């Protein structure tokens, strides 16, 4: 395979700066889950923290522990736990843990001590119906956490939820539900300093949802969370560029193969898709495992760089274009670039390096 994913750290730093300025005084918790949306968790973490993010959202304990062990000292937030999740390791590595249910609280308490209390963020379900305590379960969860806090076994760092990004009306109801959960916790004497609700969508558009921190994910990678404005329209820059080369494989007249296929992150199921070959837009004919057939002009430079997607300001297709062509969202396009595709990290303050 000869595809290459170039990660533009200057673009990431720019985006984190834009987002930080927009939501201040709320802080930015940068989502680096799913290997930083396919960009590379460790590399993205260090640039994000140097550019204005104050904490990192990592989804699950093993990823948080890996970051901590690599020397990352900031607040690390993990919230999706299975029955085999290693809460002992999370507590000893000072990982902040999202808690949706009593069984998680009990496991964390067992892993904690007065010397090393577990750090918890209680989650209320405000309508998404994934994780989080239902409103009728909320007082019990808060009370149980408070009792552990009184015994010195946990510290309640936060109360949080997740919006559905449905209609403005639906989201307003969810913000109300979150405020109601905060009020109930307050009545029970639980007033954590980190209230976080919004991700990219509400963080950008809904000041009322920002509270103490916004968990920005997709916007930081330069991709819009909305369907009525692009990342470029928001003043953001694409962080990932997926490139390959023109193939020497024999092709039908007027067609050329390029050296990336769906195993290299070329999205499947797209209609009317295009790539850029040496700056020229070329229609995609069909996508195979390791190569893609494209419709090319009469003369084509065999050495031309092929850009599957990248920064739209340079005239190439964007991940958002591919999302539109294949009926999905940009998040799936960038996270769909498999781990085995080489990442080249072009860093901000040093000459481009390969890692």
């Amino acid at each position, binding site marked *: 395979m000869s595809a290459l994913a170039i990660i533009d750290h200057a673009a990431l730093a720019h985006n984190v700066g834009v987002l930080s300025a927009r939501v201040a005084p709320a802080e930015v918790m940068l989502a680096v889950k799913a290997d930083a949306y396919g960009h590379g968790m460790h590399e993205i973490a260090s640039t994000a923290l140097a550019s204005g993010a104050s904490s990192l959202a990592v989804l*699950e304990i093993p990823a948080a522990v890996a970051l901590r062990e690599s020397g990352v000292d900031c607040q690390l937030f993990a919230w999706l736990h299975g029955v085999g999740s290693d809460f002992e*390791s999370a507590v000893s590595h000072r990982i902040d843990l999202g808690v949706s249910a009593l069984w998680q609280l009990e496991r964390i308490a067992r892993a904690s001590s007065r010397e090393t209390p577990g750090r918890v963020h209680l989650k209320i379900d405000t309508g998404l*119906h994934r994780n989080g305590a239902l409103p009728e379960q909320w007082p019990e969860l808060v009370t149980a956490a408070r009792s552990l806090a009184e015994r010195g076994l946990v510290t309640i760092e936060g109360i949080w939820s997740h919006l*559905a990004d449905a209609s403005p009306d639906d989201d307003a109801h969810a913000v109300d539900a979150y405020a109601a959960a905060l009020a109930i916790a307050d009545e029970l004497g639980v007033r954590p300093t980190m209230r976080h609700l919004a991700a990219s969508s509400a963080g950008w558009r809904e000041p009322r949802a920002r509270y103490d921190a916004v968990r920005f994910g997709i916007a930081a990678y330069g991709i819009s969370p909305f369907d009525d404005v692009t990342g470029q329209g928001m003043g953001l820059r694409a962080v990932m560029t997926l490139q390959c080369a023109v193939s020497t494989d024999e092709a039908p007249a007027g067609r050329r193969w390029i050296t990336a296929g769906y195993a290299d992150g070329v999205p499947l199921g797209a209609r009317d898709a295009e790539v850029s070959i040496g700056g020229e837009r070329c229609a995609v004919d069909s996508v195979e495992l390791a190569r893609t057939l494209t419709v090319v002009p009469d003369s084509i430079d065999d050495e031309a760089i092929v850009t599957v997607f990248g920064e739209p300001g340079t005239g190439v297709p964007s991940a958002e274009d591919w999302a539109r062509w294949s009926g999905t969202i940009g*998040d799936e396009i960038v996270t769909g670039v498999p781990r085995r595709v080489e990442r080249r990290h072009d860093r901000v303050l040093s000459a481009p390096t390969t890692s």
Partner: protein
Amino acid sequence: MSAAPEPPGLRRVARLSARAFDEALTALTTEFGDDAEVDLRADAYGHGAVEIERRARSRGIERFVRDADASPAVDRSSTLYGFGVGRPPLISLIGEVVAVKRVAAGTAISYGYTYRTTTASTLALVGLGYADGVPRLASSTATVRVGERRGLIAGRIAMDQLVVDLGDATATVGDDAVLWDDVESFAAWCTATGRAPAELTTRLGARIRRVWSDA
């Protein structure tokens, strides 16, 4: 199952059937004799090239297609990986139930509230999403089995999670959630997503552990 210890995180497993692979190798060598070759490109279409090669070599196969090679003239992946029509997949895809909720009829679920329950329902949250290669196109279309019940994916598949509507069935945190494990369920996933079998397995992500089972 393999002897590898369970890693301390969510359970996401591509379970590979040693018996089915053995039968596939027999079919391959019967059909092609000394020309039998095993296509290892794209990490053996997502199956894990190292173990596929080791098992193929132990059966005397010496010819392999690798990433640097041109696309082979004859596609033998169908026989080998169970991509052909009516063939069982070599991989069964299994996630973990990480939360269970009982909700009323009319409850909206996941991003955009594109799905609502039609009856009082049990919802199982499963720790697999499109970052794992579960196509977002399967939202509200494909099904997942928990216990004896196969339920519809309720609403949008997210990056790391999906919700299954189990109706009046029950589920417990820690249960297996089986996306596919036989001819019928794999074919249904291909239909629901418009993906070819090879496309589904090749895009399975790095967080999913490949585990060989003797069965």
